[in-house]
Every structure is written in structure tokens, then in C-alpha cells.
């Protein structure tokens, strides 16, 4: 009789997930491991019948941690459906908004969701493993982390109107310009944020060094990867090509509108979330991962100097391309954080950023279908919206980070469970002394 272990709920996660592990009756063999999404809310159905321009005001509720990409991606889909071109300044302000979210979300992920495991060690008392403990035990780093997250969130609010669930993006551009007063305020604090980011890189590198045995040997599972990058391979979270990378590192890029040629959606009976897969390989061989590691693996380079140097350092150290080490996700996330603060600086210094020419009046609803794609902090978002001639949304297909990641997570969890249960990896893995005991 196999034994079934359940983790309910999976914590430090934005959403509902459970983990199920099936082990043979003698406890020596892993039969299966699944990460299951235990609920869904049917956004694809209830955006039908809504005004197209209001879809971007509804879908941010898919994820309260990354509402901004869920605000911009549908706006781009509406613009694609209606053939709308936006002014260059609007493009830049949207990019600043996305980078601000990327910055705050990646830092929240690193400091509040992931760091408790590294700071206290994975076997510390669960009651200790959380952000509140870190704030108390490492007050200097904790304060810095709070100030960084606050900077990103405040910048999101200054542009988006609200930090959670923004309201600024409309077909044709933006409802409001970014004010000079705000620009000056965020520019003034920018250099300090760069210093903080450098400090964060040091912390992350210490984590990598301390946990090198884990990074190098736990959960090293070849999969496909999916992300967004410019046609020439430059990392781009805002407006790139749908890019996939096979386990050997061969990259292909497609226009987002071609996503149906690239991705299929698979349903399992144990999960409300559907698993996407690479169509040319099929399911389950074509499961993939997205998010920071996916982005790094489909990119040739970062678009800013510090981040690009950090990417080279990572590739040199790990020694493979693509990188299949699941614990390198955190490292990739920090590289993207560096890119975010550098891009924020470049955009704040661009005179166009306070332009009032942020909206075209040349917007007319037409019957049509459009695709909008951006990269959210935890993966690629693809919005496929169909408008009728009155501008009402008639059909929607949304592929979000969770869909892309589920198949890859199942594969990883199974692999790690085998490492621990069948190969007794916990005995051989070298773990550092916790920073805080």
C-alpha cells in the first residue's frame, strides 16, 4: 500500500497550492509527486461581456503580487486587436511601471519568501522561518529590504494610481502622465537604491557560496524554458518575442501572436491549474519553466551593464548554458533585480518620462483579436482577447505564470523527492551553519 504525504497548504506562496507525495509501502521508492493548485476563479469566462478597455482593470486581480504585468499585458492585447499604436513616451512610462514592479516583487520574493530558508536553514523551527523574524534578527538588512520594497511599490503607486491593482493603462497609452515632481523624488533616492541593490547582490552571492552544494546538486533537472527577449536575444520584460529554449540550449523566437503554434495546454484530474507544454515535443516531455531562470536561459545578454556582468559571472560559475539548477532561480532573480534598478535609473533620467504626450486619440474599437505579452516577476503572461465591433470582449484566453510553471514544478518536485528518499541526499548534502541560530 503506497503511503501518501500531503503538505497543506504550501506556504510562502501567493495562491493556493498543496503538495502530494506518493511513496511505496516500504517507504523506499517515490511513485509520484504533484504540486496541485486547489482552486481557480475563471477569469477567462467573466471578462467576456466586459468593455475591452476594462479588462486591464479586472485582470490585475489574478495576482496581487504582480498586478502590474496583469494590467499591461491585456492593454497590449486590446491595442493589438484594435490596431492602436501608442506614443513613445507612453511606452517608456509603462516600462518604468513594469520595472518598478519587477524591483519590488523580486525583492519581496527574495527577502520575504525565500530568505527565511537561507537565513535560518531549511530545518529551522517553522515558526521562525518568516520575514517577521528576519526583520527582528537582522534589523539592518531588514530595514534595507523594507526601504527597497517601499521604493518599488511607491513608484508603482505614483505611476499606476495604486500600488496594488493599478488603473493608469488604457488602450492608446496612459490615463495620466508621470509628474516631474514624482520623477525628481524617485531620482533623488535612486543612487541609494543602487547601493542597496549592490548590497543585496553581496548577500545573494554569500547565499550561493554558503549553499553551493545545494545549488550545484539539488534539483538539477533539464527542462525546456520559456520567456521574453528581443529578437537579438536581449533580455526584455516589456515588449519582446516569445522565446523558448530546449534542454540543450537551442533557442527559438516567435511573435507573441504565434503562441498557439508554440504552446499547448494539458489538463490533469488532480489540479485546477492547467499545465502548458511545448507543442513540438508534446506533454509531458515538453514541460518547461518560466520566470527569472527561464528569462535568463532564453536571453543572450541583459540590457544594462551591471546586470549583464552579473549574468556572465553566473554562467561562468555554474558552467552550463542553459542553467538547469532550480536553486539558481534566486540568483537569476537577483540579476533581474539589478537590471530593474538600472533600467529605472535610465528611464527616470530620460526627459520623455515626464512627457504629457502619453495617449493617442486614434483609438477606435473594431472587431478583431489581439495578443499582449509581458514578463511578470514569476513568468510570462500571454493575453489573447477578441473584441466585437462595439469594443466588448467576446473571448479570452489567458496563459499566466502558474500555467507555464506547473509541469516543470511537478517534474522538479518528483526529482527532489527521489534525491531525498531514494538517494538519501540529506545525509550527504553539505549545509552551512545558519546565519541566525
Amino acid at each position, binding site marked *: *500500500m*503506497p503511503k*501518501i504525504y500531503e503538505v*497543506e497548504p*504550501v*506556504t*510562502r506562496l*501567493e*495562491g493556493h497550492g498543496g503538495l*502530494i507525495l506518493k511513496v511505496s509501502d516500504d517507504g523506499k521508492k517515490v511513485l509520484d509527486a504533484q504540486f496541485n493548485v486547489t*482552486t*481557480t*476563479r*475563471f477569469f*477567462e*469566462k*467573466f471578462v467576456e461581456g*466586459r*468593455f475591452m*478597455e*476594462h479588462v486591464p482593470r*479586472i485582470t490585475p*486581480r*489574478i495576482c*496581487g*503580487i504582480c*498586478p502590474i504585468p496583469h494590467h499591461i499585458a491585456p492593454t497590449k492585447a486590446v491595442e493589438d486587436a484594435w490596431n492602436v499604436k501608442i506614443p513613445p513616451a507612453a511606452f517608456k512610462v509603462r516600462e518604468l511601471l513594469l520595472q518598478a514592479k519587477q524591483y519590488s516583487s523580486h525583492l519581496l520574493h527574495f527577502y520575504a*519568501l525565500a530568505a*527565511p530558508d537561507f537565513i535560518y536553514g531549511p530545518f529551522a523551527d*517553522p*515558526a521562525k*522561518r*518568516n*520575514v*517577521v523574524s528576519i*526583520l527582528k534578527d537582522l534589523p539592518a538588512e531588514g*530595514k534595507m529590504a*523594507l526601504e527597497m*520594497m517601499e521604493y518599488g511599490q511607491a513608484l508603482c503607486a505614483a505611476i499606476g*494610481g*495604486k500600488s*496594488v*491593482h493599478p488603473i*493608469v493603462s488604457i488602450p492608446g497609452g496612459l*490615463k*495620466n502622465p508621470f509628474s516631474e515632481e514624482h520623477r525628481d523624488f524617485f531620482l533623488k533616492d535612486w543612487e541609494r537604491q543602487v547601493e542597496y541593490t549592490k548590497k543585496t547582490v553581496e548577500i545573494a552571492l554569500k547565499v550561493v557560496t554558503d549553499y553551493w552544494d545545494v545549488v550545484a546538486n539539488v534539483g538539477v533537472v533539464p527542462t525546456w524554458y520559456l520567456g521574453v527577449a528581443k529578437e537579438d536575444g536581449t533580455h526584455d520584460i516589456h515588449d519582446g518575442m516569445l522565446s523558448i529554449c530546449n534542454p540543450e540550449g537551442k533557442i527559438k523566437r516567435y511573435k507573441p501572436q504565434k503562441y498557439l503554434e508554440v*504552446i*499547448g*495546454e*494539458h*489538463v490533469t*484530474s*488532480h489540479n485546477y491549474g*492547467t499545465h502548458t507544454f511545448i*507543442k513540438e515535443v508534446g506533454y509531458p516531455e515538453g514541460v518547461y519553466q518560466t520566470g527569472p531562470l527561464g528569462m535568463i536561459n532564453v536571453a543572450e545578454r541583459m540590457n544594462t551593464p551591471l546586470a549583464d556582468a552579473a549574468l556572465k559571472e553566473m554562467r561562468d560559475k555554474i558552467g552550463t548554458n542553459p542553467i538547469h539548477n532550480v536553486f539558481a532561480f534566486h540568483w537569476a532573480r537577483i540579476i533581474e533585480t539589478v537590471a530593474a534598478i538600472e533600467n529605472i535609473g535610465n528611464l527616470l533620467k530620460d526627459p520623455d518620462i515626464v512627457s504629457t504626450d502619453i*495617449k493617442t*486619440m486614434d483609438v477606435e474599437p473594431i472587431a478583431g483579436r489581439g495578443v499582449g505579452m509581458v514578463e511578470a516577476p514569476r513568468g510570462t503572461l500571454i493575453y*489573447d482577447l477578441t473584441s466585437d465591433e462595439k469594443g466588448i470582449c467576446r473571448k479570452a*484566453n489567458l*496563459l499566466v505564470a502558474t500555467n507555464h510553471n506547473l509541469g516543470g514544478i511537478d517534474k522538479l518536485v518528483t526529482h527532489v523527492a527521489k534525491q531525498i528518499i531514494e538517494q538519501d541526499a540529506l545525509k550527504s548534502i553539505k549545509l552551512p551553519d545558519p546565519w541566525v541560530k
Partner: protein
Amino acid sequence: MAKLKTAIVLGATCAGCDVAILDLNEKIFEVDDLCEFVFWPTAMDFKIDDLLALEDGEVDIGIYHGAIRTSEDLEMAEILRKKAKVVVAFGACANFGGIPSLDNLPYDQSLFDLVYEQVPSMDNPQGTVPLEIIELKSGDELTLPKMLKDAGALNSVIDVDYYVPGCPPMVPLIEKVVDVLKKFSETGTLPPKGTVIAGEGTLCEECGREKPEQISYHAFFSPQETKKIDPDKCLIPQGIICMGPATRSGCGALCTKMNVGCRGCMGPTVKVKDHGLKMISALTSLLEVDTEEGMTEEQLEKIVQRIPDPLGTFYRFTYGSSLISKLHSDKEDK
């Protein structure tokens, strides 16, 4: 003073409510001084068994965010009610059903058929759907929570003591909650049961835009159609649909400050039973009051046509607890 044992439980939610709490930034230390968290899946590692292991009534403050969408949401709400002395519905979803309750609209097509069969990226020749019970060859069972027929507000399934609306509740409101907790911790006194921790009046009172003595409008415009909006004048006469007149204050008027019409995430004001109906009746009475009699049927029709989605416009956050949703639901049952 012992800390208040606090549990945060999630229903059908986006976790934006959790982010709103973390957006307190340095003030989070004040929360930590006041509260000992015993359950908070988004931020902490306690499991359901940890919550179940507590005595009934041992939790001082139970906060629930998200709608009731699945059997698990319902069970967790019931567990929280049992364990907590005080239950707070936090955010628009827990207060009114929120955006997830747009699920409850009277659709012809089943939700499962769409998302597990008919979306264009689907590759599901066997017609697999998520199952509540999966029987394994070994005889074991795996389960998924049951998807309930509708998404609803927290008080449709348990008794709720306090309400904090908003999508998500804004930091000033959360600070108000912190003040309430402080007072409770120091003096043991709480506001009257049923209190909505938000403003009393309408959003209009908070918005600060100048309102003409008699608001009227002659047409409505989409956000992409409006060129210049006067930042000091009421949005409705400028042709922007704004739920302000029917909506509770307390959010800081963040949307109208951005020249964007309110969609009512704070829910209705006291005594209003149906948020959307209240707004529709307000708008009808404001329709070009001076010239209505002189308006042709065609002109009227034109204005009405500009609102082809009344449910998504007037019930965006409150459909799940609206009178009209009950009518729809009764009809379906028949």
C-alpha cells in the same frame, strides 16, 4: 500585555490583501508588537494542522480575505470562526464576493467547458477535468476541493464581526485596523459588532472634486475617448461613469485623483442594499435634468447604448452579494 493571537486565512484571493498589509512598511513592526501570527500562509510556514490544534476561541483576531469559491474556502472560514473570537472580512472579495463573484453571472456556457475544453490553446482529447475525488489503483483517494456553484461573500457562510472593504484595503484603512487592535489590546474594548472600518459617507465627500449644484450629463465616454479631464471638477458631468455617489469613502479617492472613475471596490454606503441599483437609479435621475423632456427617444437610446455592460460597470465588486444576483440565481434554480 499578551500579544493578540492572529490568523490570516485565504479564500479565493489574489493575495493583494497580503501585499497591502506588507505595504505598511516600517509600521509592520507595530503590527508585530501587537500580534502574534499563528497562521498566515502567504508569509509564514504554519499548516492547517497547526491552526486546528489551537483551542476553540484561542485566536483573538481572525482575518479572512478572498471570496468563498470552493468547499475548502468554506471549510477554512468555518474553522476560522470556531478558532477566532473576532472575525474580520478583509477586502472586497470577503466583503461582497468581489471580482471573483462575476463568475455568478447567468452564463449559458459552463465554466469548466470553457477553461478545460474550449480555449484555443487546449489539447485535451480525452476531456479530462479536475476531479474532487481521484481513486488510485491502490485504493487510496486524492481529493481536490469542490468548486461551489457561486462565489460569495464571507458573511454568506459564517457570522462576521467586522468589515474592512477595498480592493485591496488601502494603507490608511489598515492603519485604522491597527488602531482598533491597539485599543483592544490595551483596554479590551472593541467597536460595535458589524462595524465597517472605513469612512461613513460617500466617496464624493472624500473626492474633493467640485460638484455642480445639480449634476447632469449628456453622454458617457470611454477612457480612451477623453482628451482632457478637468482635474478639479466632478467626473460625471464630464462624461465619466463614476460610482462615487453610491460608494463608501475611506480609500483616499485614489482612482478619482487619477481622473479615473470609481468602480466601487469599497462597496455601498450604509443602508444601501444593492450597490449597482443605487448607482443606476442615481445616474438615471441625473440624466441631463434640464433637457430630458426635450430629448428624443433616439438620443436617450444613444446614451443607454454607451453602457452595454451594466453588470461589469455597476456590480464589478459586489455582484456576489447583490439583489440582482439572487434573482439570477433563483431563476437558474428553477
